[in-house]
């Protein structure tokens, strides 16, 4: 505080603190507290607000914990988000290693250029693209049929398949970049020393590269899991009749039942889920917040 005044003077310090306070208070802390408060209030008509029925209650959370369907959807969302995270990790690790250690830095720039293109195309269009590709009468079945690999079309979008395909495609890059950053800081000499000492490929990765890449792996997993569990677009565009995502239930409370209180409770549960996952990952993989935010 005094350091700030010394450095930038009173007036500028005032502006700096005012802007930051507005952000953290009005856009981050207070809205989340209101969300929490709202989730403990009953859903009642406007004229009863402030009346005897308007008291704190656990009813909204009870709705969730007594509904086997909602519990199941929550569980499936956690499960499939973890599956997506794992698939992304497996897909992304070799790419990150390639970009950081195999290709020359100059070529890596070109690879990044190509990787960046889909990242800037919006999520809604990327899901839409897959809904075209995976259609029963679509180009994927046609191509496989043309190659003689299948006799009749495959229904791709059964169960959670469509959602999984869409989520992996949409978020895999969020796994590549942090792992790349982590591996890049590994001294190549360490890999070469392991090679010279006769370590097989898998052991070099298991004992040298992966331990070094842990923070990157952790932050990649955090981002992919959070984005997947919180995704609304992909499950609604690529889902099937049997795939329900937790965010769809939240949406239902808000837009169909117009019950914002229960909706808030569900949204808060989603926030809790993501927070728990973040802290688990940070503890297990030794990630610091600074690593995530790169």
């Amino acid at each position, binding site marked *: 505080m005094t350091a700030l005044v010394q450095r930038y003077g009173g007036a*500028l310090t005032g502006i700096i603190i005012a802007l930051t306070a507005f952000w953290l208070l009005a856009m981050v802390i207070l809205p989340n507290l209101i969300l929490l408060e709202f989730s403990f209030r009953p859903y009642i008509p406007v004229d009863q607000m402030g009346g005897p029925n308007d008291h704190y209650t656990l009813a909204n959370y009870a709705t969730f914990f007594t509904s086997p369907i909602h519990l199941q959807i929550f569980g499936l969302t956690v499960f499939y988000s973890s599956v997506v995270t794992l698939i992304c990790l497996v897909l992304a690790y070799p790419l990150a290693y390639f970009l950081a250690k195999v290709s020359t830095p100059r070529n890596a720039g070109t690879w990044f250029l190509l990787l960046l293109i889909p990242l800037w195309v919006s999520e809604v269009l990327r899901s839409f693209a897959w809904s075209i590709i995976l259609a029963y009468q679509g180009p994927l079945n046609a191509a496989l049929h043309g190659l003689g690999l299948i006799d009749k079309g495959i229904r791709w979008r059964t169960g959670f398949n469509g959602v999984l395909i869409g989520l992996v495609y949409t978020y895999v890059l969020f796994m590549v970049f942090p792992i790349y950053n982590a591996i890049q800081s590994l001294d190549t000499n360490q890999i070469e020393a392991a090679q010279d000492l006769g370590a097989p490929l898998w052991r070099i990765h298991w004992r040298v590269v992966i331990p070094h890449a842990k923070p990157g792996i952790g932050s990649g997993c955090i981002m992919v899991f959070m984005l997947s569990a919180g995704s609304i677009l992909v499950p609604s565009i690529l889902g099937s009749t049997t795939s329900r995502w937790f965010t769809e239930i939240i*949406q239902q409370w808000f837009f169909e039942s117009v019950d914002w209180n229960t909706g808030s409770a569900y949204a808060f549960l989603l926030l809790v889920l993501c927070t728990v996952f973040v802290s688990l990952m940070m503890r297990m993989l030794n990630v610091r*917040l600074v690593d995530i935010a790169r």
Partner: protein
Amino acid sequence: MRPFSLGRLIITAYMVLFIVYLLAPLVVMGGAAVNNSRFPSIYPWVGLTGRWFGELWSDQQMWRALLNTVLVAVAVVVLSVPIGTAAALLINSVQSRMRSTLYGLMVAPILTPGAVIGISTILFWNKLSVPAGLHLSVLGQSSFISAYAMLLVLARLQSLDASLEEAALDLGASHAQVMRRIVVPHLYPAFGAAAVIAFFQSVENFNVTLFTGGNSSTLTVYVFSQVRAGITPKINALALIMVLITVVGVILYEVKRRQSERRLKVEQEDTLEDDVIEGLGLPQLTSPA
């Protein structure tokens, strides 16, 4: 230096396959924009047409959504870049204990699902009797986009030598002058990057906008409603245009980034081994930047 090996070949092939996997859906989606079929697909191929662009052009809803998107994105840039800068300046000057708490608070919005941000934003402002609408989308989006801006500005700020500021103050410069003549010019590249990222993050945003936008829709919300309502390929026409804009934008951005990278290369100490070896041959490494 790098001998040919089977492993290298396999991993390079994997990289190429991955790029194909990333880009093929975009090609399919773009291709469907010029296919003369009632349904958005490239198969069966009926023939080349430009009529979906015509339909898109005459879609009033699309134009309104586009205007909304641009307005929101500009407002987000105007709001989040100054906030991010202020936050970076603040965190750069506070001490350890306070610093990590503040940092955690500032990074938290990045790790919060968009639906939660959208819902909490609308609840908070509703409490203050502010109705839903694009202005709330701006506030909701800025809550996490400011965090990105803060990180970009902070990274740049850390390469600014604090003794420059002190020297200027000792020589009698006012605080405003130090800010205007030393700090701000040093941060220019970060402002540019933050503005670009903020703009695109805002354009792409769906989750926050869905809950805060009320009856107004931005382009992503419009596309979503069209996709859900069983659509005509005019969305593909829109997609093709957006993909092309993206490709051009990414190339321009990358070209600029490389130029500035070349300039920065000299200052950077943590360059890769290969860079150093390549760089040793370059004459400018020996001359001060």
